[in-house]
């Protein structure tokens, strides 16, 4: 039976089905990478972003009330450029539907229009041939065909069909796609979500076939140990414990079999604040701030046992904040996204106060940056995203946090970030000058990245087969060869001003031997004797070597 309107609970099921559909096609989306390098992560990032939103939202009957935490969660959890744009699309939908209990044809149409408009507005330089185009054309081409008798299924079918047409056309709008012979990955991911949503209405529920979908949420960096001296026998205890656990609901007569999330939440509410409880099958994830964790534990154990349990004294954290507040603010703090333990260490040594440790594909979320922003204690902050796909998440974090005097220096590689820090003068109190020096350091840097091609490639004079060595110069293929070192030297020759350059940093990747590094440095010294190359263990994934040449 076709639906003329849907409520919050239906929307929740649809979105969850959309997420599962996306997760099942994640790798396909990841592979739609313009360059044949294994750093594609659009599918992963979009899935992480949507999951973060859905995971933060309890079931609600009113559509608007359900979407609010979904939208907020997505803004916070946004990863990568595609994730940021997806979160903006949903923010637009929520803005339109905020007061709607039910979503009918008119509301849906307006929400889809508001979605793309919001996303366009959030992007500084909107590029056509991307998710933006597809989301826009999808609704603009059908909006006049929607009337009050349209069913939700019909609207979504048309929307998807138009978006599919638009998707095929993306390579015509965006030359890089055409050259690479791919369609836009973000747009494809967006369509997959809506296809899953529509499938739900037709009763086709997707199941996630790879277990990976559940565990891809990368582990949070362990919080730095709290300074225990800030809580003692004379302390007041007002803040309670931050309590987080995953509860496995159990069978058997020892356990109450009448568990419902609703009544569990009602009971927990008595014991604390900031309560979030989400049920996934027979597991329940709970977050609560409470002064009496024993009560919470006792209540939970009526229904099952703990898979994991975390308890933190929030008074201690609170006192730390107070103690930090007493200390004078630094004139300037620096936050950087890093991949690799060596790069992390190097950035910290060069004066970075907070690093956002990223997984394999540099997928730092806005939330990671929001957390880092709240952890620094400074008058001014500079953020170095160190990847072109992290810049938007950082910028979004600044907007979300409302933090002032934050500058996102759009470093596109760790090498650019490195030279920003290397040229900084922490001795100086002149913050604008420091920021300018960092910016100059970043902008005068060329980045070479070396890895193995994951598919055949032939464009812009660079040709290689899958499995051969490929080097990108500032993100664009510059050389390919069967020999990694030849490839590197050839690419080095393509760096503008290389003959006069003297300063060069080489980050050695995870699992790359020091012998290889020595060979590379030797070859570089032979080819460019003026270049003073310094090798640093980076430990980054994907790229065996990242080279920065700064003029």
């Amino acid at each position, binding site marked *: 039976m076709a639906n003329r309107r849907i409520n919050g609970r239906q929307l929740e099921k649809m979105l969850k089905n959309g997420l599962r559909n996306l997760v099942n096609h994640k790798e396909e989306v990841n592979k739609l990478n313009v360059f044949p390098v294994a750093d594609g992560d659009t599918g992963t990032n979009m899935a992480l972003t949507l999951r973060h939103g859905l995971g933060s939202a309890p079931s609600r009957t009113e559509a608007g009330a359900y979407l609010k935490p979904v939208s907020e969660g997505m803004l916070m959890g946004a990863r990568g450029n595609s994730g940021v744009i997806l979160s903006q699309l949903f923010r637009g939908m929520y803005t339109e539907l905020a007061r709607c209990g039910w979503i009918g044809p008119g509301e849906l149409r307006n929400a889809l229009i508001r979605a793309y408009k919001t996303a366009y507005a959030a992007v500084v330089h909107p590029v056509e041939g991307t998710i933006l185009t597809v989301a826009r054309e999808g609704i603009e081409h059908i909006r006049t065909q929607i009337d009050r008798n349209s069913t939700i299924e019909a609207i979504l079918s048309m929307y998807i069909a138009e978006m599919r047409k638009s998707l095929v056309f993306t390579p015509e709008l965006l030359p890089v796609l055409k050259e690479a012979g791919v369609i836009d990955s973000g747009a494809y991911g967006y369509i997959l979500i809506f296809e899953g949503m529509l499938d739900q209405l037709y009763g086709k529920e997707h199941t996630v076939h790879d277990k990976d979908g559940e565990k891809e949420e990368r582990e949070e960096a362990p919080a730095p140990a709290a300074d225990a001296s800030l809580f003692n026998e004379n302390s007041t205890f007002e803040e309670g414990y931050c309590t987080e656990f995953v509860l496995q609901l159990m069978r058997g007569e020892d356990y109450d079999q009448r568990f419902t999330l609703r009544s569990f939440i009602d009971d927990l509410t008595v014991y604390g604040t900031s309560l979030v409880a989400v049920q996934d099958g027979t597991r329940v994830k709970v977050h609560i701030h409470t002064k009496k964790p024993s009560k919470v534990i006792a209540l939970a154990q009526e229904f099952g046992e703990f898979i994991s349990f975390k308890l933190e004294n929030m008074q201690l954290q609170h006192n730390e904040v107070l103690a930090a507040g007493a200390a004078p603010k630094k004139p300037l703090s620096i936050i950087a996204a890093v991949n690799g333990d060596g790069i992390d260490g190097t950035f910290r040594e060069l004066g970075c106060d907070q690093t956002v440790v990223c997984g394999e594909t540099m997928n730092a979320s806005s939330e990671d940056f929001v957390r880092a922003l709240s952890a620094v204690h400074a008058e001014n902050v500079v953020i170095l995203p160190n990847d072109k796909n992290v810049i938007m998440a950082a910028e979004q974090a600044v907007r979300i946090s409302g933090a002032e005097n934050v500058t996102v220096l759009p470093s596109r590689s760790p090498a650019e970030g490195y030279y920003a820090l290397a*040229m900084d003068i922490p001795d100086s109190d002149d913050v604008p000058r420091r920021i300018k020096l960092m910016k100059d350091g970043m902008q005068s840097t060329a980045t070479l990245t070396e890895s193995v091609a994951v598919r055949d490639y032939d464009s812009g004079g660079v040709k290689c087969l899958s499995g051969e060595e490929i080097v990108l110069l500032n993100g664009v293929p510059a050389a390919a060869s069967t020999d990694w070192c030849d490839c590197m030297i050839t690419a080095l020759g393509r760096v503008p001003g290389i003959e006069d350059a003297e300063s060069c940093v080489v980050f050695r990747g995870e699992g790359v031997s020091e012998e290889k590094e020595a060979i590379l440095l030797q070859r570089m010294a032979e080819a460019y004797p003026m270049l003073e190359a310094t090798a640093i263990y980076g430990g980054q994934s994907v790229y065996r070597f990242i080279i920065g040449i700064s003029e």
Partner: protein
Amino acid sequence: MKEFIIMADGTCDLDAATAEKYGIKIIPGHLVFPEQGDIPSFSEWGVIGRDEFYADLKKRPDEYATSPANVEEFAAAMEPYAEQGDEILVMTISSGISGAFNFASRAAEQVLKKYPEAKIEAVDTLRFGPGFGLMAIYASQLRQQGKTLSEVKEWLEANKNRFHQAGWLDDLSFVAKKGRLTHAKAFFGTLAGVKPIGEFDYNGLTTVLGKAKGAKKAYSLLLNYIAETIEDPENQLIVIAQTNRLPQAEEYKRMIEEKFHPKAVVIRDVFPLCGVNIGPGLMAAYYVGKPISADLSEERAIVEKYAE
């Protein structure tokens, strides 16, 4: 009239021949070397050579340490001269980075208690290494011109702030570890070819004024900096100190000679008493010029002007 005695602690990096030539008595400090324990400081390479020392220091910096002569040792150095009625000028490394001035002052008090007729003056040079050595040479030359102890001390106090350092320190990890940079928490990450340009601040600490990418740009910036700050270069002895950057120092020397035609330019090594705390990356010229501004704002402005 009998000439007064000039003493300088071992961080002035004057080799025996130079110290002899200018009549400067060196009070050695202490070194802790791996496998050798506590040994007196030296200012001539012997058992261990320059390259060997700095290479090993880079490898295991934590196994090396230094300390200045203590109060008793300063007093022991002064006492025989005080006893025979000589006046003494004792010059020490910057109080910003070492306790030597404090020790020397207390030693002087101690000796004066015993020999109330004696005359001992201590001067905190606010400099280290060959920059301090250069100041000791100036003191010796003034003495030779017939200036009294008081007059020389007065001159030093009035002019020590005119002793500039124009050079780079391309490996900040050593100064950072030992707290010898102005910035509270110095940053000591590896700087790939980036040369921090350092000058002394008012308190005798080295401050990074700016940075240059690569040696070529650094030389050009430094020569401009010298041109803006030096006075009367033709009549000066310019000292270039280098820890383990001899080829660069030689290049720098050639450029300075060509541009400023000074009376002489000499390259001096930095020996372990300072070197342990500086590391292998120092290459700097020391000369006399305009007084250094209290907050280094003028010097920063010069660097900014020439740093493109």
